[in-house]
């Protein structure tokens, strides 16, 4: 069962993406988290470009370029500015300890893989084996949003989830139409800015970015 080299490379990059998702899950420092997010974007861009090269889908080159521009440069830069302004360089706190989170993560990966297995058996595409990995990284980003206590890592988790969704779209259908992708990219960018404004408001209100304080707002 020999696969072409590009397919192998895409598989390798997919594995790299999954690895970064786990690294983000286990990371304690925000700065490293942002760096990992940028790396995830880079891996995503390279794999998109590879898929574009091997299938001849020109619009995928655009999405790869867009990914580099937005997710490797702009958003990490914005996040850097944000944590500088907010002066939040504390270590990230987690709700569950890290080895336990990792074990839950492995469970999620197994779930995602078994979910994707029947789909990839029917598909005959270059990227069919990466769908499971894409779904696993979406679920892992979900997990990261759940177990993190502070707002900034949660937002990074959200952005990483978008990366996973993008990868899933590329591996399942060779990418969405360009218009949709442009729209999503714009949404993510605007979302980041809005989150930034939110951070300032949350901090002004509670003197902290711990989102548990928001429970106080609830009226019984």
């Amino acid at each position, binding site marked *: *069962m*020999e*696969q072409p*080299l590009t397919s*192998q*490379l895409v*598989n*390798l990059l*997919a*594995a*790299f993406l*999954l*690895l970064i998702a*786990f690294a983000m899950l*286990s990371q304690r420092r925000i700065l490293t988290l942002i760096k990992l997010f940028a790396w995830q974007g880079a891996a995503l861009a390279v794999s998109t470009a590879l898929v574009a090269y091997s299938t001849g889908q020109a619009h995928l080159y655009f999405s790869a370029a867009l990914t580099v521009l937005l997710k490797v440069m702009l958003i990490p830069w914005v996040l850097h500015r944000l944590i500088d302004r907010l002066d939040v360089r504390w270590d990230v706190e987690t709700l569950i300890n*890290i*080895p336990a989170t*990792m*074990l839950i*993560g*492995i469970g999620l*990966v*197994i779930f995602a*893989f078994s979910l*994707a*297995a029947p789909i*990839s*058996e029917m598909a005959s595409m270059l990227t069919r*084996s990466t769908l*499971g*990995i894409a779904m696993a990284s979406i679920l892992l980003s979900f997990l990261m949003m759940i177990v993190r206590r502070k707002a900034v890592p949660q937002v990074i988790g959200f952005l990483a989830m978008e990366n996973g969704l993008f990868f899933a779209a590329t591996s399942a259908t060779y990418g969405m139409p360009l218009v949709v992708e442009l729209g999503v990219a714009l949404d993510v960018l605007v979302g980041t800015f809005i989150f930034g404004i939110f951070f300032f408001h949350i901090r002004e209100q509670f003197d902290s970015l711990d989102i548990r304080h928001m429970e106080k707002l609830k009226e019984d």
Partner: protein
Amino acid sequence: MSHFPDIAFQILQSVFVVLAAPLLMGWVNQCRAWLQNRSAPSIWLPYYTMAKLFHKNAVIARNASPLFRLTPYILFGCMWLAAGIVPVLATDLPFAPAADIIALVGVFALARVFSALAAMDVGTSFGGLGARREMLIGFLAEPAMLMTLFTAAFISGSTQLTTIVETLAHREFAIYPSLAFAAVAFLMVLLAENARIPIDNPSTHLELTMIHEAMILEYSARHLAIIEWAVAIKLFAYMTIGIALFVPWGIAAAGEWSALPLAFGALAAKLALAGAGLALLETLLAKLRLFLAPEFLSTAFLLAVLGMLTYFLTHS
């Protein structure tokens, strides 16, 4: 079924590993000294140290049991057995069917149990402390090691190390993401199991941090020499397992004398590189707090499991 040349190969390999292991240790120490801007000790230093230790009189605690005296020899025997099973120079050794990878991990575990028992035998506080820490590291490292080996076993469809190596050495070039995961996991296990820097510092006797050194604190003279020798063989065996799994090219088949020089050369080059890499890692990394060791090893386990899962995903 006895083939004389095969057995000669087996004996050659076993003797070679035992004799060359301290040299690898010396090489790692030398590289580390260079990297840290110290004047390097001779590469033969481990041999001198052992020769010196063999000429001394052993001092043994009054309440030590026979287990304490026996353990160095058991350790040495276990490591030598492991070195006989791992295809270092050649595959298809007559001794190899005696044990597959699971038994190999078992041999290492046997050595660990005995060294922990011996450490607790005399009843000093350091011995007990070292033994407890060693068992903590061991029980976390072992599943990660097994998972790594299973990944390679899945790819080649056998748990026999020789078969695995033959399959991996003679395949067409292909990128296996699962093997990449397994290689990183294996490296982490190697560092932990051989008491190397992120987990344990081999060159310190500071009571708060030592693990392996705390266990062998009561040993002296020939017993200490044999233990040090066994430790060197263990490092050699782990490195050759790593080489056999992840960069197996150039290994000879048993009885094939003409391929032997190439196998020797390839092995020496790979080991020199691996030793230098180990020294580099030890220079770059800082020792982890003991309580972070479970996290380090659970990461190794995670990587190994991911490797296995990725294999299923890409080959289903």
